[in-house]
């Protein structure tokens, strides 16, 4: 099963990026094999609609859950429509977040955690 963690770097030891739509990298990790892929976020400097586009991107990747700091309303709506679980309030290293997810320590959220434009620099 694949999960996506928003990350500030391209390694499992990188820090989690607290933003979803404008995170620096999406780390897509397989929870069984521990393989992962780090994809630079094409929507990082988007003029607008970053959360929507990132949500659509995730929906194309057969991902079960997104682990991040915060999601805005449009990103949440997109992920929710795509059937992707959203877990917010995650911080620390990517590797540890994956482990905690495997241990069942997280609960998915049932709404956005921040308002529009939260992650705009």
């Amino acid at each position, binding site marked *: 099963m694949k999960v996506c963690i928003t990350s500030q770097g391209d390694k499992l030891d990188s820090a989690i990026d607290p933003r979803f739509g404008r995170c620096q990298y999406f780390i897509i990790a397989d929870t069984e094999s521990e393989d992962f892929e780090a994809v630079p976020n094409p929507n990082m400097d988007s003029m607008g609609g970053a959360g*929507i586009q990132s949500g659509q991107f995730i929906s194309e990747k057969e991902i079960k859950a997104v682990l991040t700091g915060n999601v805005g309303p449009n990103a949440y*709506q997109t992920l929710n429509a*795509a059937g992707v679980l959203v877990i917010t309030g995650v911080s620390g290293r990517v590797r540890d977040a994956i482990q905690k997810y495997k241990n069942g320590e997280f609960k998915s959220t049932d709404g956005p955690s921040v308002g529009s434009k939260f992650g705009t620099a």
Partner: protein
Amino acid sequence: MIISVASGKGGTGKTTVAVSLALSISNAKILDCDVEEPNAHIFIKPEIRIKKPVFIPVPEVDKSKCNFCGRCSQVCVYKAIAVLKKDILIFKELCHGCGACSYLCPQGAIKEVDREIGVVEIGRKGNNSISSFDSAQDSHTASLQFVHGKLNIGEAMAPPLIRVVKESIDKNMVNIIDAPPGTSSPVIESVKGSDFCILVTEPTPFGLNDLILAVEVLRKLNLPFGVVINRSGLGDNKTDKYCKKENISILMRIPFRKEIALAYSRGISMVEALPEYRKDFQKLFERIKDRKFS
């Protein structure tokens, strides 16, 4: 003739200048294009005769025809459409109404529907003025024409509404456009097509910083412009130095006076509270009209 009033920094006195100018000359029409926060009406107290809602076209998807190919999402510059495997989401508040999605949909699954973004109100200055100013004036000030746009709360799409406000421009009148603050697209939409732009600034570091940005925008747009310094006497002389260095004309100085601020706080225009300034605004208009700036 079209004269726009812009500033860069907010709160420098755009509306003070635009309203006072409009009330000091004949055959004028004021168009408040600061549709996110219009305030010229507070000073003009217009009698509104026409109210019309303004719409932009937004996509509506017939999901029975959509095969989720994603073409609409790819062509949407504003990222207003998410196409998922078995669903499609339209984020109407991000849509600029360009129509690319419906035009290019291979399935013909998208049609455009109207979405109201605000209202345009058209009228003229009423005779309910507080001071005895009107009676002392030529009859022309009472016939000042008034137009403004009001963007609905929560709406981010100012330019389409500004375009509708500007449809009321009358080539046979002196049209005075009160522009929004800043230097982004609503400002550009407001000032473009003007014969002249007045940049209102104040002699403070913030005023100068934003004046420089506004000057860069107007030079890009190739618009002739000059500067009015409001609250003159406050701050420093760096604005003067900048204008001299850049060869920008200072058209007028409005002093930093308590009486002006007091009238503003009561919703009374500067020239109605202090009619002695009326001739200065007339002079400002003559200088712009004749382009004699030195």
